[in-house]
């Protein structure tokens, strides 16, 4: 009896396997996969990003697609888990996939080799492997508009400006609170190099995943080391306890700067009034006043098609999802100019990424003027300008408190990137391709 029931269950499961045969993409649509996360410890931050990403493509489809080619978007939930990410990638990869959005530094690392072999571009926008901005070694990986190394440099640059110049950094203390993973470790090398160059002392403080508890860390920062400035590389659940504990030891909020992944509404609202004055980097606008985002509201949300709640539109992470989608759409648009206005393969879209030239005029026509910086990508440089600005939380909104800050790419970061890329090429036995 028992056995029979189980046998039936097994049969059902087997039937399900066969039913799982893939739904082929319709030939006239451009396929865009999304490796998002809507479950797991990092879901609160993953959800708005995923909603923005998907809403943007819905908006483009409502306007007739990219040059008449509709976008087919499919999502897979990685739960910020590396092996689930690999499974999702294998599930969604197909020759017509436009670009992979891993949304996790760990998953990006795991997918670089695979995607390169499968000839699908990876767009790790403001995360991932910094060395991958060297296009000669990583032809399929794009890190625009900025990398963590640029982010670290921008933070130090901003601090220097506030202290009245780089020469005043000597003897100052700068601490880094970071998520103890591939993601959080990225800026350390840059900050160490900068510490040596400018003579400030650098104090790294790792926080173990997921980072619910940081009391000991903040007792050290707030009561013992007492750094002049603190930078944070935190993600998801780690951010709001950091802000709360910082407030609990009386650390001044306006001297606490997070990377762009530590500066969203989800991070500051749980800390309430304690978070007022907290700063973070960002590389795109917030709010809904941009024409493209107005289009999302009217064409998607008013039509009852919104992926998430309407109030979420215009928040930091939602807008970042929009920006990510817009860049991919623009790469498709550029590639269409080179290979024809039909659904393209990943390899062809990579050409679009490498020829990406989003100038002010183009931003205007995309409805994103003032939303983001112009981006120019070349065969060798997959990062672009690497610029970002500092924003501050005033209790209800993120307001910019600085101009776009330029990282010292040519003098400091680019040689480091090229060195790291060359090391990678040597380890993997890759011959860097010649550009130009």
């Amino acid at each position, binding site marked *: 009896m028992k056995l029979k029931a189980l046998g039936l269950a097994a049969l059902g499961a087997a039937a399900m396997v066969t039913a799982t045969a893939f739904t082929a993409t319709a030939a006239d649509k451009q396929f865009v996969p999304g490796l998002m996360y809507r479950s*797991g410890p990092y*879901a*609160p931050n993953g959800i708005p990003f995923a909603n923005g990403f998907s809403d943007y493509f819905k908006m483009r489809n409502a306007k007739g697609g990219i040059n008449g080619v509709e976008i087919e978007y499919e999502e897979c939930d990685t739960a910020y888990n590396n092996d689930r990410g690999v499974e999702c990638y294998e599930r969604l990869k197909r020759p017509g996939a436009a670009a992979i959005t891993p949304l996790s530094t760990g998953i990006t690392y795991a997918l670089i080799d695979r995607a390169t072999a499968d000839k699908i571009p990876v767009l790790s926008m403001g995360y991932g492997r910094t060395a991958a901005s060297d296009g000669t070694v990583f032809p399929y990986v794009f890190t625009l508009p900025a990398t963590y190394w640029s982010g670290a440099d921008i933070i130090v640059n901003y601090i220097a400006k506030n202290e009245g110049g780089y020469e005043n950094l000597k003897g100052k203390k700068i601490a880094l609170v970071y998520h103890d993973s591939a993601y959080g470790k990225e800026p350390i090398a840059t900050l160490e190099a900068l510490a040596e160059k400018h003579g400030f002392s650098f104090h790294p403080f*790792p926080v*173990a995943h997921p980072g619910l*508890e940081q009391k000991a860390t903040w*007792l050290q920062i707030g009561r*013992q080391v007492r750094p002049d400035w603190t930078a944070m590389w935190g993600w998801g659940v780690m951010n709001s306890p950091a802000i*709360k504990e910082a407030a609990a030891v009386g650390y001044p909020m306006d001297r606490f700067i997070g990377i762009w992944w530590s500066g969203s509404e989800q991070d500051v609202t749980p800390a309430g009034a304690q978070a007022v004055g907290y700063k973070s980097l960002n590389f795109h606008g917030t709010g809904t006043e941009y024409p493209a985002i107005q289009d999302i509201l009217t064409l998607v949300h008013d039509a009852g098609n919104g992926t998430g709640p309407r109030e979420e539109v215009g928040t930091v992470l939602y807008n970042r999802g929009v920006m990510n989608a817009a860049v991919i759409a623009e790469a498709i648009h550029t590639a269409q100019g080179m290979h024809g206005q039909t659904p393209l393969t990943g390899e062809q879209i990579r050409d679009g990424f490498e020829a990406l030239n989003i100038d002010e005029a183009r931003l205007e026509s995309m409805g994103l003027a003032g939303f983001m910086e112009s981006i120019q990508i070349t065969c060798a440089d997959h990062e672009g300008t690497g610029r970002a600005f500092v924003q501050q939380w005033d209790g209800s909104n993120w307001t910019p408190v600085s101009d776009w800050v330029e990282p010292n790419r040519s003098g400091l970061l680019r040689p480091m990137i090229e060195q790291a890329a060359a090391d990678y090429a040597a380890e993997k036995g890759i011959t860097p391709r010649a550009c130009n």
Partner: protein
Amino acid sequence: MNPTALRFGLWLLVTPLLIAALGLGFKGLAAVDSSLFFAWGYFIEVLIAGLLQGVMYSLVALGFVLIFKASGIFNFAQGSMVLFAALTMVGFIEMGLHWTLAFVVTAAVMVLLALAIERVVLRPLVNQPHIILFMATIGIFYFLDGFGQTLWGSDVKVLDIGISKAPIIVAEGVFENGLLINSFDLVAALVGAVLVAGLAVFFQYTRVGRALRAVADDHQAALSVGIPLKTIWAIVWSVAGIVALVAGIMWGSKAGVQFSLALIALKALPVLILGGFTSIPGAIVGGLIIGAGEQLAEVFLGPIFGGAIQDWFAYMLALVFLLFRPQGLFGEKIIERI
């Protein structure tokens, strides 16, 4: 005189002495403050923070102890019960209930949950080996995680019951920079103390409490004197559910109510083995030792090893204690027969 009473008596005698010694040390320490390799004020500050943090761990560990004591089940789902309780409470508050009312309703939900677990999961598994029951609770863990999020969503939720989070600085004249104590942690410690006292009274002086202790001592004997085992289990799981709710409120208002809250179960495990699986005072003492130990280690040893050592340090500390007392500090002596 029974050994428990003796132990309590000893504690009562020793505690004032300890406090006096601490006070004396306080005076003496001030004299050598900052002249040693680290500031004593800072050391004491970390110690206090650690002890208070330890009480927070004890809150979670208590739930484990209750269930293990009465049914011998190592309930891994305690962590997700904490999360589920906190999520439900926030959900009711968002519906417009006052938080005290929400507390009562959530407590009722937790009791229902306990009844359901007893009926659906535990009853069919009576007399199975411990490891099977342990796995079943991991199954419950997954189920509750998914269920809670399906019901209430995965956003970070704010749970504010009006406890001040402002730092208090005391003894400013004694130490350079004074001693920083978090007022929220103080309240949490107080709640923990009240909860433990309440549970102790419940176990010691009520009829149900006596029945619970009888079941904990010997299932068979308890059954043969007419104690209904299933009812007792349902009661224990309900009490554990309410303990989870209290822990959920404290942790939730500290760190925000979100999925990761379920992971604090992992912080309660070293507390549990150090104190012994079967002892309520053990959970408290274990919490204090682990809390203080790991915070001190992270602050004073962490920089030597590169930081983030507190997770494994707690387990190592518990392991060292176990090597000397394999049943934990307050656990029942393990007697083996052939």
